[in-house]
């Protein structure tokens, strides 16, 4: 029998009702759990989620400060800013860094060989900062990227101010340049302060005054959507967005006189060399040139690996700042310093004529030290020896002074130590001494100071090394009759917002008071004789100058160095050897001799004799600085719109008459 099916509606209704009520209770419990969850999210953790929501939608974008301008003493701008477009990348937002960069190479916006360096730089910056990967896009490149922009998440074109050097290579040795911030730079700067900054000063004033030029970056908070795109929606989303304005960098005022600088670079053009011209009364650098030069805009725009290689591989080494870093023997340019030392120490009688034949030998030695042209000077006193640059006279003088005296005197004139110029990279040359030689050589036999080492020091050869800057600094000490100012390029900083200029005081770091006015008179007059006396080594080049020039030629013998680093005395005849091995020509001068306004040192590498190659350049530089358009001496030479108020009055040597022409005549007449 099958079971009887009885539908008991009342019972089923009861079952249902019980179940429904039970279900209602369960639903109530679940609803309670839901409310508990909502309470946790919206009340308990409200702050936390509010912060997350804020972080979601607000992105902080740096506003780079405008880099300060760099201008010369007349306000002519040497380094300025130019609006450009650059490609920037936010590492956090790029899903496939290498792939994206590779596709940019395909688009022709990057160079394949720059990729490894670029990746290193990107990796070293903060992952949420925008990193410039390509500066200075052309309009065409901007357009090319713009149409493919969607393929490059996290990479965008940004309008920025890029460094621009309107005069190209002019004054690059002094001003330096900026370049893209690399791994190395990041070790020295605060990454947060440089967020949004594309470039950093690499050399020259751009590097020294990086902090002042850079300014303080600001920032703005912008509203972004989930894709990181900026959203423009007024009102409620934007109301708490912060903005902090950047503080522009200070403008840097240089002591450079671009008019003179231009002349210097034009005269050097095509041959390796350097020019440094200094205002002796404050150390202001009037011109500082190194040749050959290069266009700093290459670096400011982000130099490619290929361009950089080309500059590095150039045999003339344009990137080598000769004015600061070339270390050469001074040649005869050192003679005035030795003469002053010998006079002060009473080693020589300046009036006593000394017979100086074509060669000199040490007592008890057969080794001959020749005059440069193997000429016979005859019987000459100190003044004449300087005028005709008689080597034999100075071989003897050096020997009589001895290395200890010479070694003590050379640093007085700034040799063997940094001049303290306010740009990085200067070499300190070498002022030899017994102690130096004893510590420098490995071979004990080489550590002994030989009398022969002293003899060739008399004509600025041997171990003695100077830089063009040191020689100019030395010349300025001669010009002031003993005052030493640290050379400087930057005279003032100008706040671009107020226009107020903060002037820097010149740094007086030495005064050779032990040298008597009489000694100064003898030596300076002799230097005037170099240019004014028909026998003077620079007479022909300086002839007819409307002001008195105190000058000295020098020829640095190009020497081959042997394995130990000691200079051997092999000399090369200028016309018979490769240009590379020819002697380097020096000329130092200051003018007007009685009240100097400019001291200049000129180096022309591999040129031959100093009087032929370097002297005319020095002459034209002094002319450019001292003479007005009418060919007459300016009352205030080198006075520019932004020249600092003169605090220090030139100390004129009382022994020298105020008017220039009589001095020239006087010297010319007194000479043999």
């Amino acid at each position: 029998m099958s079971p009887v099916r009885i539908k008991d509606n009342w019972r089923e209704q009861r079952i249902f009702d019980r179940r429904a009520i039970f279900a209602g209770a369960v639903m109530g419990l679940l609803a309670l759990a839901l409310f508990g969850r909502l309470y946790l999210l919206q009340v308990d953790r409200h702050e936390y989620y509010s912060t997350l929501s804020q972080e979601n939608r607000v992105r902080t974008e740096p506003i780079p400060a405008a880099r300060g301008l760099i201008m010369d003493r007349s306000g002519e701008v040497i380094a300025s800013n130019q609006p450009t477009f650059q490609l920037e990348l936010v590492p956090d937002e790029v899903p496939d860094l290498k792939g994206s960069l590779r596709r940019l190479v395909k688009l022709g916006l990057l160079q394949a060989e720059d990729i490894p360096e670029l990746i290193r730089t990107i990796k070293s910056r903060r992952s949420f900062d925008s990193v410039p990967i390509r500066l200075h896009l052309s309009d065409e490149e901007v357009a090319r990227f713009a149409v493919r922009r969607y393929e490059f998440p996290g990479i965008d074109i940004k309008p920025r101010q890029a460094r621009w050097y309107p005069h190209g290579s002019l004054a690059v040795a002094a001003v330096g340049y900026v370049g893209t911030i690399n791994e190395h730079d990041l070790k020295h700067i605060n990454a947060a302060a440089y967020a949004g900054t594309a470039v950093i000063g690499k050399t020259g004033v751009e590097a020294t005054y990086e902090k002042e030029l850079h300014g303080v970056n600001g920032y703005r908070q912008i509203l972004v959507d989930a894709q990181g795109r900026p959203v423009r929606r007024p009102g409620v989303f934007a109301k708490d967005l912060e903005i902090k304005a950047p503080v522009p960098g200070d403008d840097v005022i240089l002591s450079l006189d671009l008019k003179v600088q231009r002349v210097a670079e034009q005269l050097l053009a095509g041959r390796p060399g350097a020019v440094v011209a200094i205002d002796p009364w404050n150390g202001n650098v009037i011109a500082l040139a190194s040749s050959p030069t290069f266009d700093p805009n290459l670096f400011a725009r982000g130099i490619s690996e290929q361009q950089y290689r080309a500059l590095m591989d150039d045999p003339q080494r344009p990137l080598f700042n000769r004015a600061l870093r070339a270390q050469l023997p001074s040649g005869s340019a050192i003679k005035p310093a030795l003469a002053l030392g010998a006079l002060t120490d009473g080693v020589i009688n300046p009036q006593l004529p000394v017979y100086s034949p074509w060669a000199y030998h040490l007592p008890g030695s057969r080794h001959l030290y020749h005059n440069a042209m193997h000429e016979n000077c005859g019987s000459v006193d100190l003044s004449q020896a300087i005028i005709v640059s008689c080597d034999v006279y100075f071989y003897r003088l050096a020997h009589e002074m001895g290395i200890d005296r010479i070694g003590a005197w050379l640093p007085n004139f700034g040799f063997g130590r940094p001049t303290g110029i306010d740009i990085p990279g200067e070499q300190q040359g070498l002022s030899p001494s017994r102690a130096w030689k004893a510590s420098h050589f490995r071979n004990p036999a080489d550590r002994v100071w030989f009398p022969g080492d002293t003899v060739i020091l008399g004509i600025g050869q041997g171990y003695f090394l100077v830089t063009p800057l040191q020689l100019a600094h030395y010349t300025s000490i001669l010009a002031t009759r003993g005052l030493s100012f640290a050379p400087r390029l930057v005279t003032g900083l100008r706040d671009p917002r107020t226009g107020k200029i903060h002037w820097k005081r010149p740094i007086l770091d030495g005064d050779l008071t032990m040298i008597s006015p009489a000694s100064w008179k003898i030596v300076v007059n002799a230097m005037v004789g170099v240019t004014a006396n028909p026998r003077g080594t620079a007479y022909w080049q300086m002839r007819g100058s409307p002001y008195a020039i105190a000058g000295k030629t020098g020829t640095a013998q190009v020497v081959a160095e042997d394995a130990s680093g000691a200079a051997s005395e092999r000399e090369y005849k200028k016309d018979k050897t490769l240009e590379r091995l020819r002697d380097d020509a020096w000329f130092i001068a200051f003018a007007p001799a009685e009240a100097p306004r400019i001291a200049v040192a000129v180096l022309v590498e591999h040129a031959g004799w100093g009087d032929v190659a370097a002297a005319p350049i020095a002459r034209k530089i002094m002319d450019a600085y001292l003479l007005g358009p009418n060919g007459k001496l300016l009352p205030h030479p080198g006075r520019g719109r932004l020249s600092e108020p003169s605090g220090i009055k030139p100390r004129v040597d009382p022994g020298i008459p105020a008017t220039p022409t009589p001095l020239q005549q006087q010297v010319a007449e007194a000479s043999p």
Partner: protein
Amino acid sequence: MIYEEISSESRTRRTLTGAARVLLALKMDGPLVTGLALTAAYGLVVLYSASTENLDIEVRTLMRLVLGTAVMLALARVSPNFLRRVSPWLYLIGIGLLLAVTVVGHVHLGAKRWLSFGPVRFEPSELMKLAVPMMCAWYLHERPLPPKWPTLLTLGAIILVPVGLVAKEPDLGTSALIAAAGALVVFLAGLRVRVIISLLLIGVLGAFFGLRYMHGYQRERLLTFLNPQADPLGAGYHIIQSQIAIGSGGVFGKGWMNGSQAQLDFLPERTTDFIFAVIGEEFGLLGLAALLLLYAFIIGRSLYLSMQTPDTFSRLLAGSLTLTFFVYVFINAGMVTGLLPVVGVPLPLVSYGGSSVVTVLAGFGILMSLHAHRKLMGS
């Protein structure tokens, strides 16, 4: 004076009874219709903001509501006896359509869910949300309650066949809802507690092994639910962003159209599955509480109506439809707040899109039919 008072009072009563008469004629339940209308209106307001002022979406939602209302009105007029009689046929048609989907279905976003009839696209799984509980109720109507084991086995087959077909599409959310709708019928029929417990155990074990045969994204969703921070920009993104939206809304919310998470596109699926989070962000805890109270009212009223129906079929079906509605709401709210894994379940009457609005309103149409015709059912 007295006359006037009485007459005004009676006029009021007349008006009320007039509205009641209209509702009666339409077989509508006044309170329930009011609750549904308020919820739908709330949904439209939120949707306007969530869609960032997209009128197109607004109009389309309105059209779906109109269509749903029409279906609801039509179904409310249908006699429960007819509904009961067509239940097995509807179920069989549904199974047939699901099979058709597996063969000629329309593939969209990696899932084969749709059948195309010219311009109209139709999701058979939506039909099954109603057809399965109807079939279960129909089957139990004839049998004594609580159900015995053979009955339960048959019911298991009735439920699992469509659930399996929908899960294969794959549409885990809908298949779970269909399973819930069927299971709730059985539950309301008085399934014994120890059977429920053993079934739950089997379910847990099944889920454990099922995990191995899940689609990659389904497994990922579950794992993400367990640890959303493991992949914040990938699979965990939805949950994290929706919690940020709700949490940052606080008690009072950021204000209509001012939810940055929603307006700035941080919240994914903000018009559809995650619209709950938009309400939480813009109207805060109070806004969510208001919505949940509306839902509670709808569910309470529906449960009350189900208890008043005269026969087993009506009771089971009406009760199941009510509880399923709760399941919709709870699963959606649970997933958006991070209580439950992310399964694609829309918030009923509020989420944009799909045929879900029509299905939900159709369910309520059936429920009201079952209630309204209670006095007509003699047998």
